[in-house]
């Protein structure tokens, strides 16, 4: 399978602090790839470098074979990335349906618009709340709505930063199922996560970050069997670095 996303020696420093340092990451077409690591490992910074909200200090990013390092987020989205942020980022004053409408309107024809809205509302279990302002939804529902908006773009690569933050265990599990379902339809997904139970549920390949560097990478089985990874999650880190 081809490489869909590739970062080469990507780095980001804030003042004297190297939040991400020389990271090589590759996401292969068709996989669910999880980016994990303890708090402060640089996961969210790397995520923001990939989506373009931070310019890198050094290194390159390639997406579908093209260098996108200098591009703004909307340009990367137009190339086929779609993004779910950590905290729900929906249009809170607008009705749920309009949120989806805004996401969909440039990706489907007018004739398909209403049908596609309905499909997403049903998929996300939000049909009963379609007329409510998005800000009145529960936290978990807002997370789902945002996932729906990201899906509306029909992306090649779905990027999710802790998509289950603040969700109940049941909602988390259902989100995991949704991600697997999307992957089954051929979508490539990169998830930043620190909830290992969730990672175990969905991941096929895993990259572990620690102190801004790649600490380990491999299949989910290899990572789960790696004692060093278990140790950094338990906090016994410094002797290994």
């Amino acid at each position, binding site marked *: 399978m081809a490489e869909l996303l590739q970062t080469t020696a990507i780095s980001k420093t804030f003042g004297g602090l190297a939040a991400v340092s020389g990271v090589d990451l590759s996401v292969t077409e068709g996989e669910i790839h999880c980016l994990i690591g303890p708090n402060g490992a640089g996961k969210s910074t790397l995520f923001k470098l990939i*989506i373009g*909200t931070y310019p890198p200090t050094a290194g390159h990013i390639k997406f579908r074979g093209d260098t996108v390092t200098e591009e*703004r*987020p*909307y340009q990367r*989205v*137009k190339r086929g990335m*779609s*993004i779910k*942020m950590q905290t729900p*980022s*929906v*249009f*809170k*004053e*607008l*009705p749920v349906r*309009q949120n989806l*409408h*805004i*996401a969909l*309107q*440039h990706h489907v024809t007018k004739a398909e618009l209403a049908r596609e809205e309905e499909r997403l509302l049903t998929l996300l279990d939000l049909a009963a709340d379609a*007329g*409510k*302002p998005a800000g009145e939804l529960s936290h978990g529902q807002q997370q789902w709505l945002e996932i729906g*908006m990201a899906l509306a*773009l029909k992306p090649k690569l779905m990027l999710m930063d802790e998509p289950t933050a603040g969700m109940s265990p049941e909602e988390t599990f259902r989100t995991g199922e949704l991600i697997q379902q999307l992957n089954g339809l051929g979508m490539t997904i990169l998830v930043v996560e620190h909830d290992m139970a969730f990672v175990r549920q969905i991941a096929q390949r895993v990259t572990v970050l620690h102190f801004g560097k790649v600490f380990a990478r491999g299949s989910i089985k290899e990572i789960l069997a790696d004692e060093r990874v278990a140790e950094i999650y338990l906090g016994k880190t410094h002797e290994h670095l």
Partner: protein
Amino acid sequence: MLRLVNGAQTVGNGWPFWSSFIAVLAGALVYPMFADSYDVGNFAYFLIWVFMAMGLCLMWGYCGMLSFGQTFFFGVAGYSYGVLAIVLGGGTMTVLALVLAVLLAGLSALVLGYFMIWGRVGGVFFGIVTLSATLVLAFFLGQTAGPEWAIGEARLNGFNGMKGMDPLNIPWFEDETLYFEGASLYYLAIALIVVVYLGLRILLNSRFGNVIVAIREDPQRAELLGYDVRKYQLITFVVGSSLAGLSGVLYTSWGQFITPGSIGLPAAAMPIVWVAFSGRGDITATLVGSFLILFAFQTITVYSQQAALVLMGGMLLATVMIAPQGFVIGIARAIGRLFRGRGTGNATSSHRGS
């Protein structure tokens, strides 16, 4: 047609609204036949300002950009019209002067907007920068009293302002000329308001309108849906500011003068009061509310200008304290609820915010 002008971004999408709209329009069209010419002239004067208010509503209420610069563009276009009407020789060239003056206002909005939006000036700083530009223009024009401040025959005249330009006029039947003054200016203003109002409703209920509302709510999310937020903000700023320019041209043509006083701080604050009081989140509320405020302001000014200014300040305070979404929109929504309660129509849109 109705499908284009109706939508989630505007209040008043059902038959009760459009019937009222046609009734009001018909009333406005026959009004000069019954009123005396002084009142018609006054009404024309109120209507002239409504474009500026609708422009601000578009930028602030729909796209989240609080521009303090409406009188900047009003002044740019007003003075440009004055200069061009004189330099081009007046007469029917005033129509060309109108078009060029509004284009110049749009061009200056493009330049100022580009530097602000691409320079990531946002939130309260957007207001500060546009206000600064407005004050700079007012002070600059105030010091143009000397004879060296002239373009061709057109003297800028400092604080006393420009005068002597022809009013707008077009060739009329049998070699006559139709000057837009009094009733004809009134009809011109009504026609332009209908065109601009319907045009803005179409724009706001289009894909473009959806995107600018999304930008108002959360610019980052809008960008992450693949929209170049800066481009949409700039287009909105240019359209909204050009409408202020249209007000500036009509004002200059109406009185055949323009002074820096119509640009400076007290003038610059006015559109913000009109739009805030009316309800910045809806274009119809802004149209109706601005007209009513101007009418009340003018009526009170006859007795005391100070009292009118105090009233304006009081209205802004009352809006902020009691009805931050605006009074007119609040009343409109209440009427809409009444209609829906009776099951007689769908007079309001679904939930909206600003």
